[in-house]
């Protein structure tokens, strides 16, 4: 999975937003300019008949509702609630932990470590749909799983996310090649995949190309959701607009430009987790332990692309949750001693939730560049000259934590688990290093070019901040700002000096971050620095498939030292995401691996009162 990369993840993030945007990838960010409307928040959670209705804004049109055909957060928000994956992330447990979803138990690993035995949960039924005989959803079988994995590998269906599982399952890459040669409509039954061995109606042996504890993560990714063959075949092209799965909700109303309505699937198999972290019980997260999911009756997802109207509607109580961006943050949130609190009067109305994102922000040097690539002292000088702490303070208003290793804080093996020290702002050391680099006082040093992956004002201001810090020690900088695709082109062709980069976890394992500097992942792979260090590569391969523990962490520590001493990248920060939600919303835990946790949340009917006006609003949505 070493080639998995952020570029395939939902829409390119500007630097600032990279973390914030994923907290509730679907529920996104706001830029509110003027003053927000005031007025008593009213509670539209309940409509006639006492149905519980969760309301969340969609911030972009979904691309496709075909699980294998999508890989963006707007689509995943819906796909993840209509379809199920074999495994899923535990809603409350941290660090993130995989638990069975469509499987009856966690896959069992064979003695030699290369075969997983998957046992399917019995009695799971697809949603009712005319595509099934009699219109009644049939039971899920292992054939659906095999079909879905093959379909996921079909190059004519899935162009975006196959890298999740490339080179993982025996014979699946060859199958993908076969679909490429055959073109659309290949008969999957005629092509057996060696690594997918059926064992009765409910069991599957999954053979891996090698020992690989990371192999299970893709089974929890929405593109690998399980679909029913009849439905795919019945709807053909239209399948992308006609989702039928086994998930917690069914598609009730599908208005791509307007309001999407998901309705509770009463026969859903899932139950609310019965364990959590310390404190979860006190916070009321376990009151529904063991309850049948989903807890709400409907989820309404109006499309509100502009952030200000979305925030206004949230504040009027017409949306149940919303993310907080920089401008709203300044307005609504107070920071004292590292604690974030909503200001009055917001604190009386709403709840605030924060979470460290699973993303690393860094600056990458092109190690093939004759100037910065050859001169380690120059790179160190730049590392000393930057002031990440102040950047976080001024540009991010404290909404990030500085990084000392490449791994984001919530992932096992981060700087919380290993000893690490890193460059801190020190202009004197920077000047010293500059002398060592052969450019005392910056004399003779040409301006260094920094390439950025967005053209937003935050990006430009970020550059201005850095330019100032570099100028203070005598280094001149030129900023070049590109669209995300132009940036990628430039980076992949190695035509850059310094690139501002970031990585969002494909799966919550430190390996996903250390691979960013593995020699063989050089451009066009994720190692954009083209960094190659024999010792680092050896340690990486050694640690790659180890389970987390002191032995693995010791290797991480050594790898981090190599990265610190050779500075192929300058690590910057791990951003913190913010969301606010209505007090009536229950069980809302910040889980960065769950795209849209609609099935777990509940609405407190006692806090629901006024109605009526909402129906007008909805009537407006319809129009």
């Amino acid at each position, binding site marked *: 999975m070493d080639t998995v990369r952020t570029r395939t993840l939902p829409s390119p993030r500007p630097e600032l937003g990279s973390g914030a945007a994923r907290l509730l990838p679907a529920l996104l960010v706001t*830029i*509110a*300019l*003027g*003053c927000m409307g005031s007025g008593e928040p009213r509670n539209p959670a309940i409509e006639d008949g006492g149905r519980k209705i969760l309301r969340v804004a969609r911030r972009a049109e979904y691309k496709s509702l075909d699980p294998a055909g999508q890989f963006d957060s707007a689509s995943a928000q819906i796909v993840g609630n209509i379809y199920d994956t074999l495994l899923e992330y535990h809603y409350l447990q941290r660090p993130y932990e995989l638990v069975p979803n469509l499987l009856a138990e966690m896959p069992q690993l064979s003695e030699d470590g290369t075969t997983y035995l998957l046992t399917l949960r019995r009695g799971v039924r697809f949603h009712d749909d005319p595509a099934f005989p009699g219109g009644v959803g049939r039971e899920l079988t292992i054939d659906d799983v095999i079909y879905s994995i093959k379909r996921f590998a079909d190059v004519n269906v899935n162009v975006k996310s196959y890298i999740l599982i490339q080179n993982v399952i025996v014979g699946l890459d060859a199958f993908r090649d076969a679909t490429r040669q055959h073109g659309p409509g290949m008969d999957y039954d005629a092509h057996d995949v060696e690594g997918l061995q059926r064992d009765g109606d409910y069991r599957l042996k999954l053979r891996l190309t090698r020992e690989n504890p990371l192999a299970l993560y893709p089974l929890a990714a929405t593109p690998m959701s399980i679909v029913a063959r009849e439905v795919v075949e019945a709807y053909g092209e239209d399948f992308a607009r006609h989702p039928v799965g086994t998930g917690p909700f069914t598609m009730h109303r599908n208005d791509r430009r307007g309001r999407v309505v998901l309705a509770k699937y009463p026969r859903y198999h899932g139950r609310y987790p019965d364990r959590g972290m310390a404190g979860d019980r006190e916070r009321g997260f376990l009151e529904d332990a063991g309850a049948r999911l989903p807890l709400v009756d409907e989820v309404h997802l109006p499309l509100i692309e502009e952030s200000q109207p979305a925030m206004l509607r949230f504040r009027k109580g017409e949306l149940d949750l919303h993310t907080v961006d*920089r*401008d709203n943050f*300044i*307005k609504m949130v107070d920071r004292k001693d590292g604690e974030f609190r909503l200001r009055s009067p917001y604190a009386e109305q709403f709840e605030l939730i924060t979470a460290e994102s699973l993303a690393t922000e860094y600056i990458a040097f092109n190690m093939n560049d004759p100037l910065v690539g050859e001169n380690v002292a120059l790179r160190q000088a730049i590392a000393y000259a930057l002031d990440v702490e102040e950047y976080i303070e*001024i*540009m991010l208003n404290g909404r990030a934590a500085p990084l000392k290793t490449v791994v984001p804080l919530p992932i096992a093996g981060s700087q919380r688990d290993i000893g690490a020290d890193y460059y801190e702002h020190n202009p004197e050391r920077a000047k010293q290093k500059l002398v060592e680099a052969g450019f005392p006082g910056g004399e003779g040093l040409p301006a260094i070019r920094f390439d950025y992956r967005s*053209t*937003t*004002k935050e990006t*430009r*201001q970020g*550059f*201005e*901040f850095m*330019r*100032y810090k570099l*100028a203070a020690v005598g280094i001149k900088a030129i*900023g*070049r*700002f590109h669209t995300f695709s132009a940036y990628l082109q430039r980076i992949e062709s190695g035509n850059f000096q310094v690139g501002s980069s970031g990585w969002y976890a494909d799966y919550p394992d430190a390996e996903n971050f250390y691979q960013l500097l593995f020699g063989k992942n050089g451009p066009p792979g994720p190692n954009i620095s083209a960094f190659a260090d024999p010792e680092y590569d050896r340690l990486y391969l050694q640690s790659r498939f180890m389970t987390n523990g002191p032995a693995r962490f010791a290797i991480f520590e050594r790898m981090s030292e190599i990265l610190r001493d050779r500075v192929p990248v300058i690590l910057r920060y791990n951003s913190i995401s913010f969301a606010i939600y209505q007090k009536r919303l229950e069980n809302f835990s910040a889980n960065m691996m769950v795209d849209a946790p609609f099935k777990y949340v509940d609405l407190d009917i006692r806090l629901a009162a006024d109605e009526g006006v909402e129906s007008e609003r909805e009537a407006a949505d319809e129009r």
Partner: protein
Amino acid sequence: MSAAAPPVQQPVVGQSLGARAMGILRRRRFVLLSFAVIGIYILIAVLGYAGLLPDFQERVGESYEPPSWSFAKLLGTDIFGRSVLYKVLVGTRTAMTIGLVVAAISIPIGVGLGAVAGYYGGKIDALVVWLYSVITSVPSILLIIGISYVLGKGLVSVCLALGLVGWVGLCRLIRGEVLKHKNREYVLAARLLGAGDGRIIFRHILPNVLHLPIVTASLMILGAIKSEVILTFLGVGIQDGDSWGTMIQDATGELAQGIWWPLAGVTFAMFAIIYALNVAGDALRDALDPKLID
């Protein structure tokens, strides 16, 4: 009734167009003020190129200090504690550069093509008309964005983009005027005397239509300044943080936090130069257009 003495014949002294214009302009104080404003802006730009403006990247105070009575903080400070006044001054240099360079690119093109097309007519005319019709048929902002993507971002490409798009209006005007003039008696006379095409166009016709480029220039500078701000605001213009456009872009988030001074400073700077150019443009037309001579 005594016969009145015959009136004394005053010799009629011909007044040159330029002298007449100067006379008209000089009588209007507000116009002079406008020219003074333009002069100051050009001076600031020149000072900027001479390296005599204060360094706008220097931090003069804390983040977001409101305006106060020290020179650097007259307009307050920005997010990094830099002087908004210095940024406005450096932005002035950028704006004036763009205005003047754009005018310098597009006016010769407009005048040259317009005169040639109007004078020769036929296929040459068709070609020129086709060219500017094509350019005008593309929404100009998109065309400019396209050009700046090809040329890369920055001052040079903004100038080129605006200059290469901006000549169309002037070209059309000049072509029309030249069409009108080329059959006038003075042109026929010149031709009878054996003057060549070049001489007729440049010595005889052009001086009669020269008021058009002069008036257009002042409006073009104004348009270019505004376009630069818009382009930069949209993220395709100057990105070095020393233009009015980037300052306005920065202000979008600041205003919600009650930080009005960066936007106020840059808006005033823009207002003054654009107003001055407008007044100057109108005055120049009044003064220079031969048709308005009574």
